[in-house]
Structures are given as C-alpha cells and as structure tokens.
C-alpha cells in the first residue's frame, strides 16, 4: 500500500511546492510509482511537473465534488513512474462545496483509498493556510514533511502548524506521524540560516532531517520550466539534495515512528 506524505506549511514561499515536485521526482527516479497530488488552487505543483492548466478537463476538484472518479483525474507527468492529480483555480470552490457535507474532513482520505495500492508514494502539496483542504490532506496522510525556511518568521509559523497538527492527530488521524522538519532555503553565507538550523537541531534533534535544501536559483527556475530540477540538471546541488531527502525518508519509514531523542 502506497505511503502518503503530506508537505505542510502555513507560510507561503518556504519551498513547499518545490519540495513536493522535486521529492516526487526523486522517488520516481528510483523507479518508485509516485503520484503527486496538487491540493493548492494555485496549481503550482501541477505546472512544476509539466501540466498545462488550460488544457485540463479533470482535476482534483472534480473528484472531491463527486463528478469524476479519482482514477480519471490522474494525468501523466513529465517523468517515468510519475503521475499527477492536478489542481487549478476552481479548486477554491471546493472548500465552499465541501463545508456542508458529512465526513468533509475525510473525503480525500476516502478517495485515495481507491488508488493508493497502485503507488509506492503519494505526495500531497497543500495550500499555505489552515483550510478544510489542508485538514483533508493531513487526515489522508501517513506522515508529514514540514519545510522550515531558515528565517525568523518561518520559525514562528512552525509553532502554529505544530499545534494545528496536534489537533488533527488527536481528532481525525491518530496514526499521523512526523516524518521530519526539512530545513529549506539555507544560505551558508547568512547568519540567520545558521541560527535557525542550529536551534532547530538542538531543540528538535532527530525530528529535523539531516538533509538541508540550499537556497538555489536553479530550483526556482526549474519550476518555471515545468520540470523538476532532476530532469534538467541531475548533478546540481538542489537535485542531489532532494535525492538525499528521498533516501532519508525511506530510511525513516523503516523505523516506522519517530521518537524525539533525549
């Protein structure tokens, strides 16, 4: 049964979609059947794997409102072993349409149960908000990857997110586990990057991935080209970082649950 990973952050621009896209590509490059699920109406993850939103006829919205089977919303992406369920603007309406439905928090989980057997990894890219869609994603997930941009404000939003996750775990998904906190946009030349990374490792210990994603122009540019960086420059630092992250997640998965070292 495929492992469902939710990439979550309350703050925009922290490398969430970049992580979803490039981590998906990293899993796929290891011949793991991978499904990227775009839960953000901005549809950036969809574009990041080569989907043209204008040509789409079926998206995650159609599956969530019940007009299309989830299987029919799956599209081929830009790499072998990689598929995507895209999203675009109309996904904003999903929130309003789901709000009055019974079991509204578990709709995505129920939909994915029909297809998770087909994949080794299912990656959920979420919007930067505490929305019903975010709750659905966390309720559907087995583990969470939390990108933490190496800046002060991002650290503040991490606390809010952790509190939110605690509520979701308590009320909706007791099996939800933290795969890890991922340090992103790390700049070796910036004092604040060192401060955040040192502090996170000291307090959160093994809850922080060993892998660090550096600030990278190449990663930013790749998303604009509709391809994961791995397909453009597999030897680049950014591409290698995500391969390393994929390996680390696989290793952590073998340990099943993460306990904070003391």
């Amino acid at each position: 049964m495929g492992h469902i990973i939710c990439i979550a952050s309350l703050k925009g621009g922290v490398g969430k979609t970049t992580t979803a896209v490039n981590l998906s590509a990293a899993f796929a490059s290891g011949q793991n059947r991978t499904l990227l699920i775009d839960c953000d109406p901005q549809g950036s993850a969809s574009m990041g794997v080569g989907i043209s939103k204008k040509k789409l006829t079926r998206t995650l919205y159609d599956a969530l409102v019940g007009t299309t089977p989830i299987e029919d919303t799956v599209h081929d992406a830009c790499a072998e072993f990689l598929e995507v369920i895209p999203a675009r603007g109309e996904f904003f309406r999903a929130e309003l349409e789901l709000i009055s439905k019974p079991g509204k928090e578990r709709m995505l989980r129920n939909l994915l149960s029909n297809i998770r057997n087909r994949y080794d990894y299912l990656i959920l890219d979420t919007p930067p908000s505490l929305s019903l869609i975010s709750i659905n994603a966390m309720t559907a997930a087995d583990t969470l990857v939390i990108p933490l941009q190496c800046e002060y404000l991002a650290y503040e939003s991490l606390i809010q997110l952790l509190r939110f996750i605690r509520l979701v775990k308590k009320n909706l998904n007791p099996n939800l586990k933290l795969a890890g906190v991922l340090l992103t946009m790390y700049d070796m030349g910036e004092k604040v990057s060192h401060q955040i990374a040192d502090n996170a490792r000291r307090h959160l210990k093994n809850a922080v991935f060993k892998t660090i994603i550096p600030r990278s122009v190449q990663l930013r540019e790749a998303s604009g080209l509709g391809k994961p960086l791995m397909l453009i420059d597999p030897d680049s630092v950014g591409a290698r970082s995500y391969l390393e992250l994929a390996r680390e997640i696989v290793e952590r998965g073998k340990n099943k649950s993460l306990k904070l070292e003391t």
Partner: protein
Amino acid sequence: MTKVANTQAIEKATNDLIENVKKALNLKEIKQILEDQHNLEISDDIEVNNGEVIIHNNQIVYKMEFEVLLSLSVLLDGQGDYIPPEDTPEESIEQLGSQAEDIVRHM
C-alpha cells in the same frame, strides 16, 4: 423555614462529589487545553485547586479551578520605570525552539 435535611450531610456529600471529580480529572489533557486556550507553555504539572457545581447553559456542570506554575518576568530601570520587552532575534529563536520541542515531544 422548615429544615427537611441535615445541612452538614448535604455539604459533605457536595464536597465528596467535588473530591471525586478532582480524582477523575485527566490533568495531562487539561494542561494541554489550558495551554491552547491561553496560548502559553506551562512549565510544571498543574494542580486542581477548587471546584464547584454551577449552572451553565441550563445544565449542571462542574467548574474546576487549577493552579499552574508560570515563570514570568518584567524589567525595570534604576528609576523604577518599566522597560517593555524587546526580544533579540536570538532570544526569539530560542523561545520558539523550546516551544516547538515541547509540542513535538508530545506528538
């Protein structure tokens, strides 16, 4: 007014009821609720102080009061004037790190 029951017996029964409610409380959960309600991190175990039976939204409920240990401080200068807090980024990061650690530890 005609007395129809022993006052002391009623008081004792009420006190016993409150004592039993106190024993049944899940203090770990309540600590969590208080932290979430008031957006604070409680540094020690909480203790239940008093309890009383009240009417809330047309039903009989138990109002329990707790004593919590909080470490708080204020700054004042040589003239005795209050100095508002001005966290350095390092102090902010340290506080946030501690908060995150506490939450992750209990997840």
